[in-house]
């Protein structure tokens, strides 16, 4: 019975929490830019409108990929709520990311193709970082299972500060914030029209948007693990982190993939190495 409730909570958390966070993101971004910004429920209106549009496709397999992306992201969040294995959840959400890329690659438009390759490079950049964060959590709590991690008596942030920064890099890339919004972006024009998402439209674009909300929920849950001992702690951590992301988004410009790969891997590896060595030494 408990399990079913958790599954339902996971399935609902995506749209509800993800959508509200997305809406709050747009309002805060607008205020930072001296504008008023849309209403809080704007993302829901966007998705509903897209669902009501005519279905047009460039390649029928785009439909497959959009649904698969959504399915994988939902399963990742549900597994998280069921407190399953963290590494497994990481691989599950990676499935979704790959289907998004695959759907873009099925279109022959150069915008889609280049956007898809930039997205692959982004995935290449953040995957090792998320992986090292998970390994760090394992080394500290001696388990990959979220149930055990939640039982850990002290906040993980104390022993894994650098890994939290590394998680911040991965978060910036996954949330598609500048300077890493190469493949597609929420706000203004791309130099690639809409990059990866150019040829997705209508209901399928709506599905990718909802899947992105689930990804946001997954990442926020991962951040929350770093102060899992108190609800107030989680709230503070998430709010501060997300506000920082919005500020970084607004003060930086979009960079090239070469810079992203080089800089993020260099910083990410260095910080991870230092933190992981601390954890090894402490064992």
């Amino acid at each position, binding site marked *: 019975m408990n399990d079913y409730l958790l599954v339902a909570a996971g399935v609902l958390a995506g749209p509800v929490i993800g959508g509200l966070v997305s809406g709050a993101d747009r309002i805060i971004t607008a205020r930072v830019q001296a504008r008023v910004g849309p209403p809080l429920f704007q993302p829901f209106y966007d998705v509903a409108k897209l669902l009501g549009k005519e279905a047009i496709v460039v390649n*029928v397999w785009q439909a497959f990929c959009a649904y*698969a992306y959504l399915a994988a992201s939902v399963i990742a969040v549900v597994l998280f709520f069921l407190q399953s294995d963290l590494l497994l959840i990481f691989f599950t959400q990676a499935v979704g990311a790959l289907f998004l890329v695959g759907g873009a690659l099925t279109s022959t438009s150069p915008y889609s193709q280049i956007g898809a390759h930039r997205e692959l490079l982004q995935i290449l950049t953040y995957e090792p970082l998320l992986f090292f964060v998970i390994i760090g959590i394992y080394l500290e709590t001696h388990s990959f299972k979220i149930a055990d991690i939640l039982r850990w008596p002290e906040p993980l942030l104390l022993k894994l500060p650098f890994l939290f920064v590394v998680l911040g890099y991965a978060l910036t890339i996954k949330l598609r914030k500048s300077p890493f919004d190469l493949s597609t972006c929420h706000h203004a024009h791309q130099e690639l029209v809409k990059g990866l998402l150019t040829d997705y439209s209508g209901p399928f674009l709506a599905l990718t948007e909802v899947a992105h909300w689930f990804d946001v929920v997954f990442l926020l849950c991962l951040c929350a693990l770093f102060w899992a001992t108190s609800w107030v702690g989680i709230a503070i951590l998430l709010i501060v982190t997300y506000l920082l992301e919005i500020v970084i988004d607004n003060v930086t410009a979009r960079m090239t993939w070469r810079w992203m790969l080089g800089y993020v891997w260099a910083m990410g590896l260095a910080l991870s190495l230092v933190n992981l060595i601390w954890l090894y030494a402490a064992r």
Partner: protein
Amino acid sequence: MVNELSTILVLLPFVSAVLIYLIRVSAIRSLIVLVTGAVLIVCSLLLIPYAPFSWSPHALLGVPLHGVVQVADFALLLIILYFGYKHRNLVIQVLSVLQIATMVYLEFFMVRGPISTDIFYCDNLSLIMVLVASIVGSLICFQAIPYMKKHEHHLHLEKSKQPQFFFVMILFLGAMNGVVLANDMTFFYFFFELTTLCSFLLIGHDATEIATKNAVRALWMNSLGGAAFAIALVFIYSDLGHLDMQQVIRTGPVAGLYVLPVALLVFSAFTKSAQFPFQSWLLGAMVAPTPVSALLHSSTMVKVGVYFALRLAPAIQLNFLSQTVAVFGAFSFLAAAALAIGQSNGKKVLAYSTISNLGLIFACAGINTPEAITAGILLIMFHAVVKALLFLCVGTIEQSIDSRDIEDMRGVYGKMPVTALITVMGVLMMIMPPFGVLLSKWMAMEAAARNIYAIIMIGLGSALTVMYWARWAGTLMSDPFAGRFKAESQPVLTWFVLLGLCVGCGVMSFAIPWLYALLVVPALGGAYVPPFTVREGILESGFGSFPIVPLCIVAAFGFLVSIWAVRRAARARIVSPYLSGAQTSEVGTFRGPMNQPVKAWARNYYLNAIFGEERLTVWVNLSAGVLLALMMGGVL
């Protein structure tokens, strides 16, 4: 009963091979191949309830077996020496003379009395290898029948070379079964060298200049491993007084077996599995016909090396050798993945991916915990099936479009939808949960988490892996206006094998909880405590859990929903991809300057500046050499 089954598994291929060579009627040859394969599959399945067992036949047709193998061994080494002369390769000549001299010294001057209690020993690890070699190997040989027919048609050969081809292919299956069942190390050595010879013959099958060159390279690199093996045998016999593999492993480095011979054995495993810096023979072997690449160079022969490493793993627990093998394996995993990114040649991508996965299995053997060994065994099983599938798919596509470059496979879905879909399915089975390859990788990662060097390299390698597979799968499907679906026609055997491997991997992935309990747990033997408990289809260990069966069910449901979405989308309005509004009615073309139609095209990122083969290979080989020196030097 079990003795008969084992005899059939090892000897029948030899007999069939001779028949194939003598009877030059193609229909009968195909029949022999099909029957041999079917019998091998059935026998290997029937063997399951009998493991573990040991078996020591004394004579073959009345001749003492030891004598037969001794003679055959020297004959084999002389044949290799002959090829060394024929191709004027000094290294092969030196190595084969060295091996002959060592074996002469061993057999005639050292050995006094029986050298092993059991000649053949089959525990569950051997059983798994027998199943893989017999089932996957036979299926590949089945597909080789239509493939070679078309291959020779393409080459406009007047006189068919298929008798020689199938002679060696089927003989090889016998050699494989012999290698994994052998317990007497001289027998192991004989079958080991036999696989080397088969590889040489098959790589050079097409007899072009480049094929011969690459075959010679394969021969000398594998002979290097053989020489190391022979020297190790001398050391082991002088230390322990016997050459019984099980007893050698049980003794371990603690009770008097110096680590050096074991390190030499591991070295020979490295050369057999084409680890760095010996990877060039495997890459060169890709010039062979695709069934050869599938059988020898991904699913079976190169697995001998990793099988051997897993077998030796209990003997090197808690030893410096184990540590270095772990680091070396992880390095291979990372370096091969990096090199694959810079490749646009489809078969070379598959080759690098094979080296990468073999490196991961070596790392598992080196990490040497129960989780790691389980991961290694599962990875052997699943990788063999999926890689065979991918090679055969690439072979089929290559025969249609006359190219093995990924860029030429762009949009091949338009021409060959079913093959393209099966290939994409194969790629998905390599990199995604809940399938077996990803499960084993997950297991290996969780096992490696306590080894900092290994885990960092594995983490980076895994991300690189994802990139080159996703790129390839997307390229295959890059066909606009793909609403229509007209299945292409292929020979029945091809469909049977491709679909069989594809569906088989899916079923095996679902059945992992049962495979684990039935096959893997007994394979761990007494040296390792089974790490996972199986409960309601969920694999659970002390620090990790993988709900296989629930995830499979949910994934299947998601898959069906997505297929339903595709069918609905087939009725949707199909529009041109976005080309800034300048698209013409012709697909993928836009109106350019002077109102002329221009074809829009894109090419994949291969990142040659960073991951290009020429650039990276030098550094990778250098680093691998350093690591090898570290391993061997540390042992001394």
